[in-house]
């Protein structure tokens, strides 16, 4: 493409339009429903401990999701979002990364965070917005984040993390660039993965983020979770192209579509994507195909917009599929697995009970972190508020007792 317009110029004299679906997109599939490797497929190079950690993470998140969904029904937390059906997509991709790679997620990726080591108590403290929440009780449940674990705090506005991932990864790359040539002088040690839904991919920020990543060569793995729905909006009212993968070629980004319920396919694709990103600095796009088995969130009831038939059709469980493979590998003791499941449930309930009685953050956390240090006007507002609360302690029971 050595012309100013930066295009291929293949002269043609036929008045033919390129079809809107001209691209042929395969879907990588390695593990079948029975937990066997497909004929012709190659299992990725994954060791036993990684595989088990991956499995345990999925199993844990499934249990957490079930418990917290119920807790919301009981009125104990205000809101929750499950990952049902997408556990393999999220966990296996996280497992293919380095612990120091940055994760910039949308909100349904709690499995990636747990894989990194976020503890049960940390999950609970966030959901109960108590004073031990790393986020200081400021965001709705499931808006986790941890600097120590390189997991960027979730932000509700959709798509905003996409160009941010491009910028973050650019920072990760800079020190590997030769100042003279502008080329990489070593492999990049850490990169960024950016998760988003097929709905969020309609935002302008998606376009900006992918195009800039291609142009500036930012080592980002863009991981599109196509789960068929954005709240009530089905994917066929979201786009007419062939999924999100068909967009890669528009940005000049290497792309792959994977079966998102197939942990091995996701793991293999992400590992290879990471190789590409670290050695070339270039972004990669992965589209994972799974089905959002549950409701969008606890505020949602899918029976209002999709059929029981359809739901039944896509019930296949990614965790079960991977479990069968582990068993066949002789890496999983089924009895212990059943017991572990029980223990996890108990642990979760105990943690929930611990977290819900921990105090809410003190009043000063209302005004801290707006700036690095409070500006004078906010300081004045805070003093005024303190005085007000002192005069009406009964009206503000959560904070009144602890005001200095």
């Amino acid at each position: 493409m050595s012309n100013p317009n930066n295009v291929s110029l293949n002269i043609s004299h036929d008045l033919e339009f390129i079809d809107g679906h001209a691209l042929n997109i395969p879907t990588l599939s390695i593990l079948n429903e029975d937990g066997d490797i497909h004929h012709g497929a190659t299992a990725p190079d994954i060791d036993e401990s990684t595989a088990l950690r991956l499995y345990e993470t999925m199993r844990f998140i499934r249990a957490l999701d079930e418990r917290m969904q119920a807790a919301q029904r009981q009125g104990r937390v205000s809101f929750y979002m499950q990952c049902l059906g997408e556990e393999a997509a999220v966990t296996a991709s996280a497992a293919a990364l380095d612990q120091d790679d940055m994760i910039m997620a949308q909100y349904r990726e709690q499995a990636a965070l747990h894989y990194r080591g976020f503890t049960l108590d940390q999950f609970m403290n966030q959901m109960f917005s108590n004073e031990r929440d790393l986020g200081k009780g400021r965001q709705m449940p499931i808006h986790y984040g941890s600097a120590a674990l390189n997991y960027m705090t979730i932000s509700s506005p959709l798509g905003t993390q996409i160009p941010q991932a491009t910028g973050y990864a650019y920072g990760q790359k800079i020190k590997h660039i030769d100042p003279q040539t502008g080329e990489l002088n070593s492999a990049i040690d850490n990169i960024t993965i950016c998760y988003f839904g097929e709905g969020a991919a309609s935002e302008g920020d998606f376009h900006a983020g992918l195009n800039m990543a291609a142009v500036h060569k930012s080592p980002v793995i863009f991981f599109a979770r196509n789960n068929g729905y954005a709240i009530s909006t089905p994917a066929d009212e979201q786009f007419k192209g062939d999924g999100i993968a068909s967009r890669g070629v528009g940005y000049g980004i290497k792309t792959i579509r994977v079966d998102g319920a197939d942990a091995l396919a996701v793991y293999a694709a992400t590992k290879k994507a990471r190789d590409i990103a670290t050695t070339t600095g270039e972004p990669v796009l992965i589209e994972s195909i799974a089905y959002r088995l549950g409701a969008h969130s606890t505020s949602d009831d899918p029976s209002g917009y999709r059929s029981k038939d359809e739901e039944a059709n896509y019930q296949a469980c990614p965790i079960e599929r991977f479990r069968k493979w582990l068993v066949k590998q002789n890496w999983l003791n089924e009895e212990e697995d059943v017991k572990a499941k029980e223990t996890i449930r108990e642990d979760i309930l105990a943690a929930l009970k611990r977290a819900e009685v921990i105090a809410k953050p003190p009043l000063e956390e209302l005004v801290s972190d707006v700036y690095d240090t409070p500006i004078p006007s906010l300081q004045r507002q805070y003093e005024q508020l303190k005085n007000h609360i002192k005069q009406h302690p009964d009206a503000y029971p959560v904070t009144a007792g602890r005001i200095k």
Partner: protein
Amino acid sequence: MAKMNMLHAINSALDITMAEHPQACIFGEDVGYFGGVFRATSGLQEKYGQHRVFNTPLTEQGIMGFANGLAAFGAPALAEIQFADYIFPAFDQIVNESAKFRYRSGNEFNVGNLTIRTPYGGGIAGGLYHSQSPEAYFAHTPGLKIVVPRNPYQAKGLLRAAIKDDNPVIFFEPKRLYRASTGEVPEEDYSIELGKAEVVTEGTDVTLLAWGAQMEIIEDAAKRASEQGISCEVIDLRSILPWDMETIAKSVTKTGRLIVSHEAPITNGFGAEIVATIQQECFLHLESPILRVCGLDTPYPLALEKEYVPDALKVLAAIKQSVEF
């Protein structure tokens, strides 16, 4: 008349509009088959078909760009932004495009047919991104109209007026009141004139001014004040742009005192404009400084929402401060 909550009242206004104009379209995220995450458009796709009531892809800038184009074509464009917190990706399309469409073209083209509906405000444990009250961001933009109803009756009448008005209008719906506020609402069509405040309660000592969900709070404060012998004149501004300076100035000329209250952060909120204008209009009548009781200058919090919001107690404190000045 029928008893309706605010969602029903809004739905009724939309229904009348759809029946009235064969090209009117309702669109936004999840507004189609599902009827919107708050169900404000419930049943309308069934009634008017998929090509007039439809889900859009998830892109607020796209929704507003599309809406500007459809309105410029001449069809009533009824766009929904799912939460006011998510209106910002559409800021350019609203502030640089909708607001300036008529002016920049010398009236060759206009988007007077545009109405943007969006739920705003706190009180639902929504934290930073499901609680914002962004009216002031738009109030600095000539060319827009901005309306906020306080109850179902107002919602239907003001929404119909907003739709019929030949200018782009942003209609902020107090989501905390969607189901909580109910009242008698005519089933037939009616409109409430834009740009007019309403004196909800007459009083003599101090004027209280708010809009939308905050009306409930200042009415509560006024009641508490009256128990202490202070007579409050309570006014619902209703329209932020244009706003009814005359009614407010008249009231303040009488009472000599003014308190403005809104949920949004105090700095450069719309309260600032009201204070700046009224201190000039009523300078010689003011017996104490005009006070603002507003959100703090922080993002909207979650655990400490109760502490953050301008509640009736805080308004009451301001009333006393004003009267005792």
